[in-house]
């Protein structure tokens, strides 16, 4: 068995005890990533030299009997939207094709301080805008479970890299489902923490009131460990929470005695593929058999989540993406005749179709005469939608739901119809709008071998509850270990 099959917890344990060197693990991960990346396109950049340097540092600490950290020697992939000092960071866009940040994001610094080894930057939908990873300027990513299918998006490269066991864990970002949906499509655990739990400093901004960073791993235990390493207050991000970070490993309990699990009827309506429904029902049955009381619920504004999100996110994006002007960094058009021409051409040439569409939509919805009808209205419905969740969590500890209506779809299937692509996010958008923590955990496979995700949500700052419920499902479901054919 390869070291990389053993997961984060095991690798860190072996490196800390000196049984395996961090350099051995990093070398193996780099070799595997190089070998398999041709098929998957999961990485945009591999960082050999830096990875080996970090690994040597961890090994030195081990030999000096110093604590190398929670993630000692664990190779990780970083979504290429988190800044890495001295390593090109593209956000999946041509406009940042040659951008080399002069500083690192807080999450990357925390991972490195915990002993993790950054082996590369993973592919993504341009500026994290997409649900299939087909919007990347660096080409689409393939799903290791079926390479004719999408890995999900926008953290598709991170998901594919972990599913194919190139790395045991990767960092994703989730604005409307971009960790949970690819985790579901690739059979992983992916956590979107509470808004404010993890620093966004040095994360290329898409929609600032929604963006969150989180872990993508094989097991719930590994996800909890990685979340531990990246959580907490950051003086450089004023939206991070002052709340103390709990010890997430204490939530790794194999039952849910005393839990009330809410099932909102709107998440179980028609339109869910039968195999997905059956697997989700099975996971709910596990929770019930392990002590949970099931409580039927209604969250009547659920279906409006898409409309709210596809106004608010583009509005925020149109403002955030205004910084790409061809002056301070990023692509600059050649032969502009004046400054205005420079702005318009640099942006027209540098942005791909999806960011352009969202900039246009957001600029329109924020423009004079339309602001109240679109942006303000969406923000009002957002409050109602959040209040519904707050009310529901007075009755229940967690809410269970599917992640998506079906498993991974075919490459190209929805690429030409933006609205069809947006509708894919129906179950992941509401928790993002409410700012509550939500995760996806694998709960089975279709007959054709595609993974199915199970979504769990909790109230603000209550990640422990969804970790406990997910761990209960994972440990009691009894799924036979599987790996994607050829990986």
């Amino acid at each position, binding site marked *: 068995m390869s070291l990389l099959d053993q997961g984060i917890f095991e690798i860190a344990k072996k490196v800390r005890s000196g049984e395996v060197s961090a350099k051995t693990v990093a070398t193996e991960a780099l070799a595997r990533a190089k070998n398999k990346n041709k098929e998957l396109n999961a990485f945009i950049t591999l960082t050999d030299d830096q990875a080996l340097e970090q690994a040597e540092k961890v090994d030195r600490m081990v030999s000096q009997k110093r604590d190398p950290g929670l993630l000692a020697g664990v190779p990780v992939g970083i979504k290429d939207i988190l800044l890495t000092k001295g390593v090109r960071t593209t956000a999946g866009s041509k406009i940042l094709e040659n951008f080399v940040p002069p500083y690192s994001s807080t999450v990357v610094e925390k991972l490195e301080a915990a002993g993790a080894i950054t082996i590369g930057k993973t592919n993504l939908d341009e500026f994290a805008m997409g649900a299939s990873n087909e919007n990347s300027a660096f080409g689409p990513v393939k799903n290791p479970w079926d390479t004719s299918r999408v890995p999900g998006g926008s953290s598709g490269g991170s998901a594919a890299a972990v599913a194919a066991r190139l790395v045991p864990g990767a960092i994703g970002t989730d604005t409307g489902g971009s960790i949970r949906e690819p985790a579901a499509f690739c059979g992983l655990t992916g956590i979107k923490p509470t808004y404010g739990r993890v620093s966004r400093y040095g994360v290329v901004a898409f929609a600032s009131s929604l963006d969150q960073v989180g872990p993508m791993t094989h097991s719930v235990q590994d996800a909890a460990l990685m979340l531990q390493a990246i959580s907490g207050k950051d003086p450089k991000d004023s939206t991070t929470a002052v709340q103390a970070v709990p010890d997430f490993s204490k939530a790794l309990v194999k039952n849910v005695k005393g839990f009330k699990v809410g099932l909102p009827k709107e998440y179980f309506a028609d339109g869910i593929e039968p195999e997905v429904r059956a697997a989700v029902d099975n996971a709910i049955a596990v929770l019930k058999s392990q002590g949970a009381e099931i409580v039927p619920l209604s969250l009547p504004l659920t279906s409006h989540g898409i409309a709210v999100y596809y106004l608010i996110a583009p509005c925020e994006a149109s403002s955030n993406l205004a910084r790409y002007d*061809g002056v301070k960094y990023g692509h600059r058009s050649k032969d502009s005749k004046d400054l205005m021409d420079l702005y318009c051409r640099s942006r027209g040439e540098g942005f791909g179709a999806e960011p352009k569409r969202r900039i246009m939509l957001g600029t329109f919805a924020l423009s004079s005469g339309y602001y109240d009808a679109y942006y303000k209205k969406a923000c009002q419905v957002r409050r109602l939608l959040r209040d519904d969740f707050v009310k529901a969590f007075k009755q229940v500890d967690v809410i269970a739901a599917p992640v998506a209506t079906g498993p991974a779809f075919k490459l190209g299937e929805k690429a030409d119809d933006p609205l069809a692509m947006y509708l894919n996010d129906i179950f992941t958008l509401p928790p993002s709008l409410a*700012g509550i923590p939500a995760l996806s955990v694998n709960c089975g496979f279709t007959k054709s071998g595609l993974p199915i995700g199970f979504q769990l949500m909790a109230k603000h700052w209550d990640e422990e509850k969804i970790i406990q419920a997910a761990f209960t499902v994972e440990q009691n479901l009894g799924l036979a270990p599987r790996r994607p054919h050829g990986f």
Partner: protein
Amino acid sequence: MAVSEETIRKIAHLARLELTEKEVQTYSKQLTGILDYVSQLSKVDTTGVEPLVTATDMAVNFREDKVEPSLSPDDLLSNAPDRSGNLFKVPPVL
């Protein structure tokens, strides 16, 4: 509501985005479809509802007003497409 090609050109200018004629046509069609879809929100009664502009009710955390180390001008200008000393260089404004 239909978003005309003329409106698309106006919005593109506001967004400082050069679009091809084909893009103007595509976005006119697609924005019309998307706005038609989001118009469902008009059915939700939001009388007296305060807009929610961020996800949690946390107060903004201010830091102490003291000088801390920051990046050097050279670091900050290291990605500039064109510079002159410590300044960003751009083509003539007029």
